[in-house]
């Protein structure tokens, strides 16, 4: 981590020194947020904490010139957590220099990006490591050092990535909630690559939009962002093992009237047996319900993983059913409710997320998650007691 920060800082100074002074305009923005998480039950393990308070800050500096065709962006992130020392952490989300021309775009530095179309999980999205302590749904990502060249044609974009440094996944600590029965020993992570986290990964992606269709085809070769786990010899913890993998990914969306049809599929080899995983489904929106400006959407996705329950994921053979209410009001009020049901075994996950702007600069977010009927045999059985309600208040600047 220290190595990482120093490199980032050095890059910042070097790149910062190269900025054409006075040629563009610099700008600060960002947010500060406070979060309170109330757990409904006592933890499975006495070491785990109860209700929890946490603070986070994410400033962003942007300096653009040549009408935004060149820019420098710096986004550090810092979280302090009351109880879980693993959740108190610092990261460089972005530290990028960008140059865009008519035919190509070059990005050098640390960056976050997203691939894919589905809502329940993001199979295809493989470039950035998941910052799991940030959000149990895996939606938050670490910044990834990269060299990215995008070749742009009228009909498609072709992206090339060189990823020279690997970021380990973060996991809640021994004190933390929302973890496996055994804590994860991140200090003893193992790599298949002899270069460990310095293995040079690469990826390519082709994406295009033709009429109602948006599609992407991608290939990744390098260290898997998702680890598998081995039990530590003393039996007291799990050790993450990062294999070298190859992964093909395909994502498709058809936008037809009020329907969005979505599919993502991957083929991964190098991590035990090769396997296929698929997420597919739809979202249908009732526009302007009951004569109001509000939209009401229903969504459903099927999640399939060839590894079945050997996959250390909550989502092996599951179905998501959800609904989304968007009021389209001044405060941008939104409400999302979802349930993920395991087809083969008992176990479902209930999700509620809602947010609303307060005044011009504040935003309040309420989130609730409940884990029901998780089987005792499951390594995730401990989260059975981790149902929580969370309130977050953020000030944007």
């Amino acid at each position, binding site marked *: 981590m220290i190595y990482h920060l120093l490199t980032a800082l050095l890059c910042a100074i070097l790149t910062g020194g190269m900025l054409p002074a006075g040629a563009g305009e610099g700008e600060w923005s960002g947010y500060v947020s406070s979060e309170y998480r109330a757990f409904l039950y006592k933890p499975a393990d006495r070491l785990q904490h109860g209700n929890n308070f946490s603070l986070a800050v994410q400033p962003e500096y942007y300096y653009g010139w040549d009408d935004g065709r060149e820019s420098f962006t710096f986004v550090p992130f810092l979280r302090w957590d009351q109880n879980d020392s693993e959740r108190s952490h610092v990261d460089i989300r972005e530290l990028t220099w960008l140059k*865009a021309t008519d035919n190509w775009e070059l990005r050098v530095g640390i960056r976050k990006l997203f691939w894919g179309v589905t809502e329940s999980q993001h199979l295809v999205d493989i470039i950035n490591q998941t910052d799991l302590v940030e959000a149990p749904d895996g939606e938050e990502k670490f910044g990834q050092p990269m060299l990215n060249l995008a070749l742009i044609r009228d009909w498609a974009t072709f992206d090339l990535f060189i990823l020279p440094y690997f970021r380990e996944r973060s996991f809640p600590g021994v004190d933390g909630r929302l973890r496996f029965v055994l804590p994860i020993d991140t200090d003893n992570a193992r790599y298949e690559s002899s270069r460990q986290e310095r293995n040079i990964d690469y990826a390519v992606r082709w994406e295009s939009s033709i009429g109602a269709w948006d599609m992407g085809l991608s290939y990744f070769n390098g260290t898997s962002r998702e680890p598998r786990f081995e039990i530590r010899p003393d039996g007291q913890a799990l050790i993450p093992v990062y294999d070298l993998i190859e992964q093909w990914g395909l994502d498709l969306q058809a936008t037809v*009237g009020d329907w969005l049809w979505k599919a993502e599929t991957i083929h991964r080899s190098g991590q035990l047996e090769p396997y296929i995983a698929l997420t597919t489904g739809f979202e249908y929106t009732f526009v302007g319900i009951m004569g109001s400006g509000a939209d009401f959407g229903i969504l459903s996705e099927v999640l399939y993983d060839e590894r079945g329950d050997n996959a250390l994921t909550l989502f092996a053979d599951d179905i998501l059913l959800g609904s989304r209410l968007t009021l389209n*009001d001044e405060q941008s009020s939104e409400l999302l409710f979802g349930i993920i049901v395991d087809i083969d075994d008992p176990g479902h996950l209930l999700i509620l997320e809602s947010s609303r702007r307060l005044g011009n600069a504040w935003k309040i977010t309420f989130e609730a998650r409940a884990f029901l009927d998780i089987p005792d045999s499951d390594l995730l059985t401990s989260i059975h007691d981790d149902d929580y309600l969370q309130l977050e208040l953020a000030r944007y600047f």
Partner: protein
Amino acid sequence: MRKTRIGKLSAVNIALPGLRAVCLLLILLPMVVQAETPQEKGLAIAEEADRRDTGWQSQTASLKMVLRNRHGQESVRHIRNKALEVDGDGDKSLNIFDNPRDIKGTAFLSYTHALKPDEQWLYLPALKRVKRISSNNKSGPFMGSEFAYEDFTSQEVEKYSYQYIRDEILDGRDTFVIERYPVYQHSGYTRLLTWLDKGMYQPLKVEFYDRKKSLLKTLTLSDYQQYLGQYWRPNQMRMVNHQTKKSTDLYWTDYHLKTGLSTRDFDRNSLKRAR
């Protein structure tokens, strides 16, 4: 969303070389004066308005939106707008939100089409995610304002049928009063009663009638300025919703036309680096 333009030439007419266009115009002009039916006269006015507003190529502008609820409480949005004129098709536009700060960097890309459905993408900077969205929400509020998406996107001639109603003097200005009837699906309106300035061929006032045919909103456009000796743009637009008693004021500044923007500035890649 850059401006309310009354119409746009059909693809065939745009492709005409200069001389033929002039000839056609000479033939059409008397029709404007002595149109046989109110429908033909309405359409001719719309086509003339479109002809006069063709050739600006691309545009950038800044926009301040002031939303007012029935108690007079205000909230403000800042948006930067870019638009690209597309020959023989609807325009492309990119809107980037600066304020409120929680949605800063959110960008909305729209390809309008005359007859087939529009294409729309939304960029969510917190997730770094480009989302293709359904374009059927035309009647939905734009950013919680009293403007609907359909009020903002480019207004192709083919999207409406027309009827000339009368001539009228509005606030001391000579206007044509015409009615427009949306022919495209998913419009929230049954008709738009439009007062069009005879000098500028630009609207001064529009009344929107909802699906129940009752008066929903009134738009007033004012403080027009001419750019490049041809193109008129309003500096202020005020939309009042008669049913909710809410209103939205738009203040446009920094209009630049023929800016040299190209299709590359309106693709999914540009969405990701929009500022």
